[in-house]
């Protein structure tokens, strides 16, 4: 699909895209690291939220600021900033997430001086009225600070416009994910990855239309396909139905994972990833007070392990998701040194075991294991399903 190609082109060099887009649109570029960053407020200010994902280069300069026992997302982001690859950024926003991001915020503030810096100290607890109020208070402060830094106040109408835009993006992504889940063969996992990632990097107005076009086309093809006969495309050449799996973890920069799953007889039919479903799960109430509504979405959407919302929220969600998508297995993708995710694995595994859902864990530091390691492991796992 040409829309997928458009996304892939951008993803081939996101920073080059950012520089180009900035020159064309004259928008201020605001870097974020986390799916709790309220992009709606950034967009409402007329600025462009640009998600950062670590670096593809070797760590050299960041060594002088961060020990090795820190995840590659944090070290990589600092590396790119120090080397000067992020000169296009006008500002960065650091929502409170984990201990490493917390310290990255300080180290960044002290060493990366070319862009403005805002801390967004969101609550860790998301399940009390006090936390809810505090969340709204923090967003209010952010609205003021950001407006000041960008030289323009953010109005309620600005916010409403951004909310509508983001609902379109999230709604379209949800439709695409659901379509792929129903019929995995309609799109490669790496293509879905390209669309989702582009949604965090590209001009949001363009991406909303692009995603809606893709969703509509898939729906049309689906209707045509259904008319031709539902059984036809579901079985690959071998005649064996695909094993359905869910991918669960934090930041995942590796579309190859879904490719290898596909090549070994499986299909990723859903995810609980920071850079996947958590980014687009949950719409915002367009009829309520905008800031309260935005806070509501972040308080209620699928929870990240660095936040607290009850003791079994994540397990309940994962099991519900697996059952909903008729998945037989869960692949946990962990980034080395990511504490919040690593702490949850034993209890999630136990909950899945009790629900009769198989799981496995892969841990990556900054690149996928070489050779056929992953292939072998996935083959073995899918065989057990």
């Amino acid at each position, binding site marked *: 699909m040409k829309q997928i190609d458009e996304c892939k082109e951008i993803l081939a060099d996101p920073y080059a895209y950012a520089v180009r887009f900035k020159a064309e649109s004259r928008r201020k570029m605001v870097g974020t690291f986390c799916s709790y960053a309220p992009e709606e407020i950034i967009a409402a200010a007329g600025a462009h939220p640009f998600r950062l994902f670590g670096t593809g280069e070797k760590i050299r300069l960041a060594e*002088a*600021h*961060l*020990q090795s*026992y*820190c995840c590659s997302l944090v070290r990589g982001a600092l590396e790119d900033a120090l080397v000067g690859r992020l000169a296009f950024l006008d500002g960065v926003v650091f929502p*409170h997430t*984990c*201990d*490493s991001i*917390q*310290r*990255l*915020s*300080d*180290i960044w*503030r*002290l*060493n990366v001086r070319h862009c403005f810096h805002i*801390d967004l*100290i969101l*609550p*860790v*607890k998301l399940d*009390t009225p*006090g*936390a809810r*109020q*505090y969340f709204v*208070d*923090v967003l209010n*402060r952010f609205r003021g600070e950001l407006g000041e830094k960008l030289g323009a106040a953010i109005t309620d109408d600005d916010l409403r416009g951004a909310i509508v835009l983001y609902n379109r993006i999230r709604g379209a992504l949800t439709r695409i994910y659901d379509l792929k889940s129903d019929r995995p063969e309609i799109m490669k996992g790496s293509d879905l990855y390209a669309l989702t990632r582009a949604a965090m990097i590209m001009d949001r107005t363009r991406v909303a239309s692009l995603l809606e076009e893709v969703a509509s086309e898939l729906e049309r093809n689906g209707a045509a396909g259904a008319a031709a006969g539902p059984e036809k495309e579901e079985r690959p050449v071998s005649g064996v139905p695909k094993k359905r799996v869910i991918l669960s973890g934090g930041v995942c920069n590796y579309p190859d994972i879904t490719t290898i799953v596909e090549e070994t007889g499986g299909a990723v039919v859903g995810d609980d990833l920071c850079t996947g479903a958590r980014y687009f799960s949950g719409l915002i109430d367009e009829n309520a007070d905008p800031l309260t509504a935005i806070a509501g979405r972040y308080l209620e959407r699928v929870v990240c*392990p*660095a936040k*607290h919302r009850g*003791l*079994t929220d994540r397990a309940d969600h994962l099991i519900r998701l697996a059952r909903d998508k008729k998945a037989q297995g869960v692949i946990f993708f*962990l980034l*080395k*040194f990511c*504490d*919040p995710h*690593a*702490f*949850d*694995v*034993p*209890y999630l*595994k136990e909950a899945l075991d009790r629900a009769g859902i198989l799981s496995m864990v892969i*841990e990556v530091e900054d690149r996928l294991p070489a050779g056929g390691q992953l292939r072998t492991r996935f083959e073995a796992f899918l065989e057990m399903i």
Partner: protein
Amino acid sequence: MAQIDEAKEKRKIKAVAKMKEIMTAYYIEAKTAEQAGKKVAWITSGGPVEPLIAMDVIPVYPENHGAMIGASKMGVDLCEKAEAMGYSSDLCSYARTDIACAPINGGPIGGLPRPDMLVCCNNICGTVLKWYEVQARFFQVPLFILDTPFCHTGFSEEARRYVRGQITEYIAFLENVCKKKFDTDRIMEVGKLSLEGQRLWQAVLDTAMNRPAPLSAFDAFFHLALIVTLRGTQQAVDYYKMLLTEMRERVAQGIGAVPNERYRLLWDNLPVWYKTKWLSEKFASQGACLVADTYTTAWCGSMRYIREDDFLDTMAEGYSRIYLNIGVDEMARQVIEMADKYDVDGIVMHSNRSCKPYSLGQYDIQRIVREKMGLPTVMIEADMVDARNFSESQIETRIDAFIEVLKERKS
């Protein structure tokens, strides 16, 4: 021979015996709490213990247990057990060892007493949140979380409101679990005792400003136990009065922790619990005394925010603005202040794999201290409880080289 022994005996701190006695009695009381009809709360080291004392709940500190596990050299085995349970070896070793202990009553005292409740304050780190979630699921007991927003450059009004509101929720939580009313007079008493204890602890640490310092950071790591676990009790106040008296006597008699104190150093980060003796002797053998540290001062550092007459209100800020909950630049400022106050010649930084909030940022603090004061720093890469991360030869080499640098600078 007899003279050397006598000097060594004189150098030993007498209060040590009393501390051991108090801590033994404390753990016995905690382990027999149920028989005595008392409730036990597990609480984080930076957590608000005063309301527990006011409610007659016995506070137990899994982190203190972690230190004991490290000191008893039981850390590696328990870490391996945690890894067998599925917990990554990169996670905090306090958390790993405590999680491994729970189902088997492991550790040097046959396990901690079962908690009736868990109190988790994330002012020290985000790890405690996950750790206490694990334990809440394991023990099936109520969990209270005090969420203290990070103070990168200050303490906002909305954070103050949020934390103060949670203190109220905390009290309601305690009333619910203990099935009795919170005594607002008692908390005032406990608050007073807490502040008095903190003032005394600061005074004890301040005696190290003298030359020679009567106690080193390694001594402070040991005597710290009561201000952490029994802050707000008369017992803690009495103990630190006694310790302060002894320190003052030592100052009067010129008794130093290190014979022939030549170099005065500041320690940063948690102790390496299974190597305190080795490190202490290594530095002492070169005439180096750790006269100050950022870890033990953390339990009297928030005094400036707390008012006796308004304890509950000011507690919110006091607990939010502790050393680990502030920005790296503010930490550097405090290190410089301490280095100046205790007149140190250099900094010893423990780059502790288990503690990201304490360790990430050390390189920048090192740089700032070098730029502002010209002081040299040595980095010791290790872990507070997991001995697999301690390379003795590498660290010995580093310390030797550092002493050479100090020697050069003095000449």
